[in-house]
């Protein structure tokens, strides 16, 4: 850790102290602020609030499943809980998690800009995010209860059930547009606000991944918007679109739903890959291996990821041609992810590695994301998919990608960047312990699901056959361990950010621009026009030996 060379020259008041609007202090100086850093922080706290709610729902679901039959809640509540768990986790935690929080905060800094290009639009996105989120959660309080359709809102069940599906649809619609506006803002910012010396290939890889993500956000999200709007219209006005009773085709709904929702998986995972690509070189003190391959693989993932949606529908009775094509491209899209994993590993090779908490989370990420990827290969094989589709194997698979991947990416980003954002360090020892507990709990929670899934345990089951109980018990115990770990981790971060020791400008020894400015950053980020000469991962000051490659 380069704690030494930090001549504390002029320290200007940070963004935490200086407001952009007429309210000097208090809540209004935050919720009316157009500063990208404050908006990032606002996203962070609102996201964490929603995350807590959804974790609690997940905890209840797991507790219910510890034994067959009714344990603590009835079937209706269970169905509503897993629906809300999905909606909140996906639309309010995983999708905005990295772009809206850390992207907002660090994207402008990393490209040497003062702010995003449309600051007011940025604030509006946050309002839509909060508003949409409250809509989703508040539907629980209405008579009839919140939606019980699953987060996929499959037609015709979503048209027929008596629960409050409409608020959930509206929530998802609003959240979709919040996501679109963030994406639009980022694309334009990256094109227009880059420091004049920062060419495309001097951009940090996190920025590259956000760029690819933003394009998917802009081009795929409207499809879910219109699809959910159609379900709402169908529900309220009885217009015949998807309902088979009126001649509609439920499979078409699934096509449209997954046209967005599969690329959405890449909206979730790409920024996490970006975070991993940031953290590995910093803690290995080494230039990243294969910069261009990682950058282009992000774009490749964004592109091929848009071509594979129907692999969620292999049991729906599509044409054999469609089965063939979508299964084949599913394998193609795995290649860029594999490229990334191998490049990350190679970056560790002959580095000088320090096992600080962010790096530990990245290690968990690599292993868990790989498991998610490998089980994805199994699900991509047609004959095998037929057996595994809609079982808890799938549940485990996507939790490995989304939670084990993106979730851990978010935790890594928190441990990496929060000291910069708040200027204080958390307790490293406690953070390491928390990492251990979270990783163990996480794997104990989802590993058993693979086994029972292969044995034929369908997903979204309130009740189950007694033969599956051992796996459910193991999984539920895992959930307790995980939650204990999460509580330790967040408490440690919270205390650290409030009372921890002040950190220097560059506690980890990073080389990207955010580590070259004051901690916490000042209002418009840079005191002077930053000097950009080398690429983002130039560790030549540590690296004495040079190895040239063929």
């Amino acid at each position, binding site marked *: 850790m380069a704690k030494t060379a930090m001549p504390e020259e002029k320290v200007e008041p940070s963004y935490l102290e200086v407001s952009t609007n007429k309210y000097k202090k208090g809540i209004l100086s935050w919720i009316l602020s157009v500063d990208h850093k404050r908006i990032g922080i606002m996203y962070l706290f609102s996201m964490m609030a929603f995350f807590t709610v959804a974790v609690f729902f997940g905890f209840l679901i797991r507790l219910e499943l510890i034994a067959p039959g009714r344990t603590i809640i009835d*079937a209706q509540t269970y*169905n509503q809980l897993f629906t809300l768990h999905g909606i909140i986790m996906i639309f309010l935690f995983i999708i905005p998690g990295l772009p809206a929080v850390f992207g907002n905060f660090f994207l402008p800094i990393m490209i040497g800009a003062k702010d995003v290009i449309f600051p007011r639009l940025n604030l509006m996105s946050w309002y839509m995010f909060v508003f949409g989120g409250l809509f989703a959660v508040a539907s629980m309080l209405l008579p009839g209860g919140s939606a*019980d359709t699953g987060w996929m809102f*499959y037609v*015709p*069940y979503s048209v027929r059930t008596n629960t409050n599906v409409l608020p959930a649809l509206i929530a998802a619609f609003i959240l979709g547009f919040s996501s679109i506006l963030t994406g639009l803002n980022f694309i334009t910012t990256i094109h227009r606000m880059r420091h004049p010396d920062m060419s495309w290939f001097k951009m940090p890889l996190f920025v590259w991944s956000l760029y690819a993500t933003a394009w998917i956000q802009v081009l795929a999200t409207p499809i879910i918007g219109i699809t959910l709007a159609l379900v709402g219209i169908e529900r309220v006005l009885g217009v015949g679109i998807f309902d*088979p*009773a009126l*001649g509609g*085709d*439920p499979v078409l709904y699934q096509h449209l739903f997954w046209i967005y929702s599969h690329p959405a998986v890449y909206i979730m995972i790409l920024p996490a890959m970006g975070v991993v690509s940031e953290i590995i070189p910093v803690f290995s*003190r*080494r*230039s990243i*291996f*294969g*910069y261009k*391959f990682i950058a282009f693989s992000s774009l490749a993932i964004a592109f091929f990821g848009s071509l594979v949606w129907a692999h969620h529908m292999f*049991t729906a009775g599509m044409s054999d041609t469609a089965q063939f094509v979508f*299964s084949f491209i599913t*394998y193609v899209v795995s*290649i860029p992810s594999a*490229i990334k994993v*191998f490049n990350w*590993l*190679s970056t*560790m*090779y*002959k*580095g*000088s*590695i320090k*096992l600080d908490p962010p790096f530990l989370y990245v*290690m968990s990420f*690599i*292993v868990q994301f*790989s498991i998610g990827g490998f089980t994805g*290969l*199994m699900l*991509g*094989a*047609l*004959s*095998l*998919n*037929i*057996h595994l*589709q*809609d079982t808890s194997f799938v549940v485990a698979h996507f939790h490995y990608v989304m939670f084990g991947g993106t979730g851990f990416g978010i935790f890594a980003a928190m441990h990496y960047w929060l000291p910069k954002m708040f200027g204080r360090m958390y307790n490293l020892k406690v953070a390491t312990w928390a990492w251990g507990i979270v990783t163990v709990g996480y794997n104990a929670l989802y590993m058993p699901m693979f086994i029972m899934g292969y044995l*034929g345990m*369908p*997903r979204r*089951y*309130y*009740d*189950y056959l007694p033969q599956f109980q051992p796996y459910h018990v193991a999984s539920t115990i895992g959930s307790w361990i995980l939650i204990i770990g999460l509580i330790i981790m967040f408490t440690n971060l919270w205390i650290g950010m409030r009372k921890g020791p002040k950190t220097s400008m560059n506690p980890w020894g990073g080389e990207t621009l955010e580590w070259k400015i004051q901690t916490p950053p000042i209002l418009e980020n840079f005191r002077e026009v930053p000097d950009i000469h080398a690429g983002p991962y130039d*560790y030549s000051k540590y*690296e004495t030996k040079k*190895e040239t*490659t063929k």
Partner: protein
Amino acid sequence: MFTSASNFSNNVDAVFLYIAGLSFIVLIGIIVAMIYFVIRYSRKRNPVPTHIEENLTLEILWTTIPLVLFISMFYFGWVGYKDMRAIPSDAMQIKVTARMWQWTFEYPNGLKTDTLYVPVGAAVRAELHSVDVNHAFYIPAFRIKKDVYANKNNDIWFRSEKIGRYDIACAEYCGLKHSGMYSAVYIMKQEDFDSWYKTTSAKAGLQPALTAQILK
């Protein structure tokens, strides 16, 4: 874990073992490499890192090798799937109707039951139809599954290989009692089936005494 109860079971399990085996090897490779790097190149042991930009040969290598492996996985999956789609023309036709939350099976002679009875070794084609929302017809032991829709005529076939009772589950979320939408398929000797098929009237459906006898 791997019981061969239908003509598809072995194939699906083989594809699973193939992909799982390969994955396991690579995963162990990744974990071992990572742990080795972390220990061997820790800041204490290796304070001075080495500058390595990129290596085209390696990049090409780890693009093409996975690609070849992936295509082989795809191929095995596709071949297995093609069998699932090649329905023999002499298959016994059974109409399966799904409703919230139960299954009804209708035999060619009009007999309706809530449990499926099938002679061992015979090809069976199930025409799937739903009267309300989406369901999915799933027999885990046979490794088959297909979604059931209201205005789309999906079908599925299997040839059972072992006498016994196997679960039929609904795999597509369909509301309150989704998890209770279980039924069973009884695989019986051809003679047993014939006598059952002839003697059971359309109303009788499941007969516990007979069921016990079959499973004996």
